[in-house]
C-alpha cells in the first residue's frame, strides 16, 4: 500500500529523528531517500556534539530520539569540553566512526515497526482540493500521506565548487535534488541560497604524526544518552597541527582561484565556520591557524582536516595542504569544496515547524537555514512529533526558550529568520544557567513520555535518578561539619568538590556514575536559578497578557507599518503569540505592550502622563 500517515523526504539527521518519532508515536511512517546506503551520512566533520550542540543531542535523547544512542555506540573518542567552566556550559563531544554510525542508524530504521524505507527521490508534492495529498517521486510513483516533512539538507539545487569548477551535487559524488527544488519554487515561499564548505580528506598513513600534538579523549567518557551506563569501547587520539608561512602565501597568491573570492558563489556562508581562505583574508595579522586532524573511523583510512575548509582550485588546495606541518607528504583522498543550496526562510513556519501557507507540510533541518547534524536532529524530532499531533488534532508541542535549547533554536528560526547558516550557541540561550546539559532529562523526559515518544523505562529511570540526586542535595544542606553545612562549604570560593566529598562521603553513597555533577551544580546554581525563575515568571506574565480581539492595529501609528500588517493578519491572542510572529522584533513587542498599557489606562479613565512607569523584560 502506498498510503502513509507521515512521509519524510530525506534520510539525514533531521529526517531520521522525524521518521523515528512518527513511527514510535504509532503513525504509519515512510522515509523517501535517494539511497538507503547513505542514510545518516555525516557529510562533513566526523563528530557529534560540542558546545551547545551537545546540549541539543542530550535534549533529543531526553525526548526519546536516537542520535545520543548512536553516538554512544559509534563514538571513537569522547571529550567533555569546557570542564574548567561550570556544568551549564559543558559540552559533550565525540568523534564518530562514520561508517559504524551510518550502519547503526540504518539498522535502527530497518528494525523499527511502522516504518517503511522508500529508495527514491521526491519530485513533487501532490495537492488535492488545495489540501496536501502526498508525494510524487522521481520514478513516477505516488504515495499518499496525511502530513509530509521535508528534510533535504544541502540537496535542494545543490552545487559544489572547487575553484572555478562547478558540479550539480548534493554532497560529494551524489546527485542533488533538482525537481523537488523546482517544485518548491512554485509554492510562493521565500526561498534563499546559503553556502557551506568542507575540508579535504587525507590518507591516514601519509601523515607525519611526530610533527603534531596528540589529543586524547577523556579517561572516563561521558555518554550522550541518559540510558547509556558507560562507554567501554576503545578510544583513539586526534592530532593538532598548524598552518605555516608558506600556507598563508599560497592562499593569498591564489585567492582568485577560490570559488568564494572569484565571485562564483552567491550564497551566504557561516561566520563561525569560515574557509581557510576566509581566515587569512579576514585576520591578516595572524600568520598561523590551528588545525585538528581527526580520524573518520576506527578502520577508515580517511583523516579529516578540521579547520581547513576550502573552495580553492584542486591543484592549489593540494599545494596548500602540503604546506601544513606534518602534512607535507600527505596523500589527498578527496579535496575540499564549497556547496551552495536552497533553503526556505524559516519565518514561513509556525513554531511547531508546519508551514503557515500549507497545512500538514513540515520542514526540518538545513532546509530551514541551519547548519550542523545536531541542529537538524533537534528540528527533526520536533517536526516528527508535531506532524503526529497535528494528524491527531492535538495541540502543538512547542518548547519554551526557558525550557530547552531546542526551544531557543526553533524560536530564533521562526521569529527572526536567518541570513547565514544558523548554528546553536550557548549564548543564544538567555536562560543558559537553567538549561544544563546534565539536566536535559529532568527538563524534557516527562514531556517526551506524555506525548508517547520516550518510553516508560526512560521515564522511571529519570524519576529514580532525580530522587537520588535530590536526596544528596538535601543531605548536603543538612549535614554540618565545623559549624557549616556541606552545601555552605562548597559555596566558599576555591573549594574543590573532592574536599567536600571527603567531609562526609556517606552523603554521596547512593549516587550513580554521573549524578555527582548534577548534585553539585544544583547547589552551585540554586541562587541563580531562583533569580532566573523570577525573571522568567515576569516575562511569562507579559507573554500571557491578553490582547483584546478588537484591538485596532491599523490605527496604532506607533507601530512599524510591517508590524501593524502582521499583527492584524495574525490577530495574536496574547503577547507571547505576538512575539512568535515572524518579522516582529522585541522592539515591536515593547511598543505593543506600551499601547496595550495606554489602552488599559484610558479605558479605566485614569489619565497618566508618565509614559515610563513600566519596564519590558525580554523573555
Amino acid at each position, binding site marked *: 500500500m502506498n498510503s502513509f500517515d507521515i512521509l519524510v523526504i530525506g534520510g539525514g539527521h533531521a529526517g531520521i529523528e522525524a521518521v523515528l518519532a512518527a513511527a514510535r508515536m504509532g503513525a504509519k511512517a515512510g522515509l523517501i531517500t535517494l539511497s538507503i546506503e547513505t542514510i545518516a551520512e555525516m557529510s562533513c566533520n566526523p563528530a557529534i556534539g560540542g558546545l551547545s550542540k551537545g546540549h541539543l543531542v542530550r535534549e533529543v535523547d531526553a525526548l526519546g530520539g536516537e542520535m545520543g544512542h548512536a553516538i554512544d555506540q559509534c563514538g571513537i573518542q569522547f571529550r567533555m569540553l569546557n570542564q574548567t567552566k561550570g556544568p551549564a*556550559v559543558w559540552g559533550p563531544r565525540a568523534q564518530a566512526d562514520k561508517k559504524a554510525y551510518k550502519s547503526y542508524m540504518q539498522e535502527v530504521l530497518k528494525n523499527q515497526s511502522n516504518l517503511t524505507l522508500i529508495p527514491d527521490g521526491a519530485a513533487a508534492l501532490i495537492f488535492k482540493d488545495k489540501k496536501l495529498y502526498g508525494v510524487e517521486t522521481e520514478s513516477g510513483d505516488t504515495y499518499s500521506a496525511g502530513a509530509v516533512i521535508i528534510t533535504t539538507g544541502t540537496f535542494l539545487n545543490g552545487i559544489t565548487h572547487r575553484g572555478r569548477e562547478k558540479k550539480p551535487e548534493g554532497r560529494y559524488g551524489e546527485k542533488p535534488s533538482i525537481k523537488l527544488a523546482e517544485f518548491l519554487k512554485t509554492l510562493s515561499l521565500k526561498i534563499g541560497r546559503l553556502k557551506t564548505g568542507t575540508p579535504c580528506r587525507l590518507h591516514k598513513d601519509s601523515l607525519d604524526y611526530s610533527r603534531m600534538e596528540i589529543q586524547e579523549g577523556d579517561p572516563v567518557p561521558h555518554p550522550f544518552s541518559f540510558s547509556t551506563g558507560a562507554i567501554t569501547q576503545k578510544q583513539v587520539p586526534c592530532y593538532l597541527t598548524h598552518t605555516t608561512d608558506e600556507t598563508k602565501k599560497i592562499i593569498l597568491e591564489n585567492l582568485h582561484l577560490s570559488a568564494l573570492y572569484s565571485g562564483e558563489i552567491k550564497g551566504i556562508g557561516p561566520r563561525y565556520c569560515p574557509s581557510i581562505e576566509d581566515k587569512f583574508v579576514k585576520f591578516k595579522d595572524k600568520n598561523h591557524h590551528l588545525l585538528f586532524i581527526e580520524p573518520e573511523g576506527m578502520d577508515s583510512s580517511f583523516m579529516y582536516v578540521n579547520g581547513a575548509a576550502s573552495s580553492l582550485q584542486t591543484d592549489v588546495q593540494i599545494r596548500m595542504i602540503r604546506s601544513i606541518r606534518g602534512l607535507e607528504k600527505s596523500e589527498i583522498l578527496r579535496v575540499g569544496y564549497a556547496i551552495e543550496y536552497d533553503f526556505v526562510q524559516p519565518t514561513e513556519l509556525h513554531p511547531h515547524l508546519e508551514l503557515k501557507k500549507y497545512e500538514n507540510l513540515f520542514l526540518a533541518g538545513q532546509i530551514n537555514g541551519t547548519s550542523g547534524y545536531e541542529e537538524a536532529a533537534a528540528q527533526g524530532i520536533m517536526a516528527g512529533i508535531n506532524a503526529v499531533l497535528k494528524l491527531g488534532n492535538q495541540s502543538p508541542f512547542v518548547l519554551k526558550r526557558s525550557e530547552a535549547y531546542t526551544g531557543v533554536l526553533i524560536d530564533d528560526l521562526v521569529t527572526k529568520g536567518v541570513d547565514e547558516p544558523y548554528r546553536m550557541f550557548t549564548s543564544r540561550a538567555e536562560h543558559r544557567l537553567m538549561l544544563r546539559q546534565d539536566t536535559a532529562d529532568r527538563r524534557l523526559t516527562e514531556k517526551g513520555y506524555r506525548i508517547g515518544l520516550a518510553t516508560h523505562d526512560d521515564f522511571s529511570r529519570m524519576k529514580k535518578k532525580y530522587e537520588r540526586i535530590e536526596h544528596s542535595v538535601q543531605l548536603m544542606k543538612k549535614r554540618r561539619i565545623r559549624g557549616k553545612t556541606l552545601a555552605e562549604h562548597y559555596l566558599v570560593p576555591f573549594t574543590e568538590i573532592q574536599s567536600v566529598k571527603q567531609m562526609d562521603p556517606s552523603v554521596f553513597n547512593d549516587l550513580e556514575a554521573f549524578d555527582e555533577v548534577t548534585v553539585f551544580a544544583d547547589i552551585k546554581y540554586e541562587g541563580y536559578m531562583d533569580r532566573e525563575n523570577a525573571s522568567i515568571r515576569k516575562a511569562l506574565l507579559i507573554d500571557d497578557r491578553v490582547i483584546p480581539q478588537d484591538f485596532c492595529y491599523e490605527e496604532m501609528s506607533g507601530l512599524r507599518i510591517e508590524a501593524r500588517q502582521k499583527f492584524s493578519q495574525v490577530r495574536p491572542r496574547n503577547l507571547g503569540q505576538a512575539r512568535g510572529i515572524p518579522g516582529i522584533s522585541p522592539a515591536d513587542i515593547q511598543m505593543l505592550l506600551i499601547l496595550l498599557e495606554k489602552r488599559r489606562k484610558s479605558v479605566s479613565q485614569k489619565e497618566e502622563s508618565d509614559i515610563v512607569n513600566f519596564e519590558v523584560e525580554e523573555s
Partner: protein
Amino acid sequence: MDTIAAISTPSGISALGVIRLSGRESIPLLTRLFKGHKKVSSFEHHRAYVGKLIDGDTLLDDVVVIIFKAPSSYTGEDLVEISCHGGRIVLERVLKAFFKYGAKPAGPGEFTQRAFLNGKMDLLQAEAIEDIITAESELALLAAQSLLSGKLSEKINELKTQLIELISGFEAEIEFPEEDDVTDHVRQALESRYVLIQTIIDYLETLSDSFEQGMLMKEGFTVAIFGAPNTGKSTLLNQMIGFERALVSDQPGTTRDYIREKIMIHGLPVTLIDMAGIRTDAGQIEKEGMEQSKRLLKESSLALFILDGTRPVSADDQLALESCPEPIPKIWVINKIDCRMKLSIEDPLIKAKKPFLISALKGTGMRELVLAVNESLNKRSIPQKTELVLTHIRHKNSLVQARMFLSEAQKGIKTNQESEIVVYELKNALNELRILTGEVTVEDILSHIFSHFCIGK
C-alpha cells in the same frame, strides 16, 4: 488613535493663544470650521494661512493656521496649529467647537507622548522635553537640553559597547574553548577585564552621584530658616519673599503650603523653608514638628540660623543649633536689631560666626543677607556646563542597579567563579543600561565575537 486638541499657551491674558490638534482627524476638523481665501485642502505643509473659524453662524475668532502633515510634525501625526487671540474665553470657545466635532482633550504630556510612540524621539529625549517645558531656571534648562541632545544616550551607549566587548571576551572562551585565537586572548584577559569593569563602575558612580546635582539644577536649592521659637523666622521668610519679588523676580513664587516658599535668587531657584521653632520643653505635638525640622535640615543646601537679638543666648538656641547636622553650611543671623539688644554680639564665640545683623520686620540688612545666601549657593557645586548630570530618578535607579551587578561580576572574577556566572552578572548590568535606551540582543554579542576573533575549525 483619537485626535487630540489642547490650548498650548499658558493661561492668563495675552495677545495671542495657540491651540494644537494632532491626529488623523485634525485636518478634516479644521476644514469643517475654517473659512478663508483658500481651502484647507489646498494648504501647503508648513505655511501660515489667515482666515476665520466659523461654527454654523457663530464667528469663533480670526486666526492664523499652520498645518504639519504626518510624519513631518512634532507628534509624527497630522498636526494643526491655530493662533487665536489670547484670552481664556476665546480659546475655550474654539476648543469646545473642536470637541463638539470629535476631538478629544489631550492628556498631560500627550503630544510628547505621541511623538515618542511615533518614533520621533527616544525615551530619554521625551523626558527631556518635559524638563525643558517645566525648567524654572537656566541651569535646569541646561541639564534638560543636554538630555535632549542625546548626550546621556551617547554615553550610555558607549558603556554598553564596553560591556558587550567584555561579555564577548568571556563568551568566546565559553563557545570556542578549542580555538587558539581565543585562548591567546584569555591569558592576559582576566586582570584587564577586572580593571575595565572598575572603570565602568567608577563612571556609573560619578553619573549616579550627579543625580543630586541634577536635582538641584532641576528643583533648585533648599534653604532652611531655623532657630528657637519666636526668633522671627516667619517674618524673615516673608521679608525675603517680598524683598526678592521687589528686587529681582518678575515671576511669582508658587505658594505650596505654609512653610515652603519658592523664590528666585539671581536666577537660582530656591525653596525657603520656615521651620518649627526648636525648644527644650516642647509638648508631644511640637516634638513631632521638631523631628520633622531635623529631617528637613538634613536635606537642605543651606541653613539660616536665627538668634533673637533682644535676649541672651538660651538653652533653646543651643538645642536648635545642635539639631542642624554639621555638614550643612550655616549662616548666622541676629534678628530684631531695631529693638534693644541684649545679646552680646561682641562675644568672641558669636563674633567668630560673622553673624548678619538684620531687622526682618523693618527690612534692615536684607540686601547683605540675600547676597550672602546667593554667594553661598553659588559656591555649592554649580556644575561645569559641559558635564552630564542625571535629572531623573529612573535613570539613577538603573545605573545603581547596573553598578550592583558589575560589582557582583568583579566579585566572581576575584573568587574564581565560573565564567558563565560572571557573564550572567555582566548581562544583567547590560540589561539595566538597555532599559535606559533601547535594545541589545544576543546578536550584538555574537557579531562582536565574529568581528574580533578568528573562529571556526
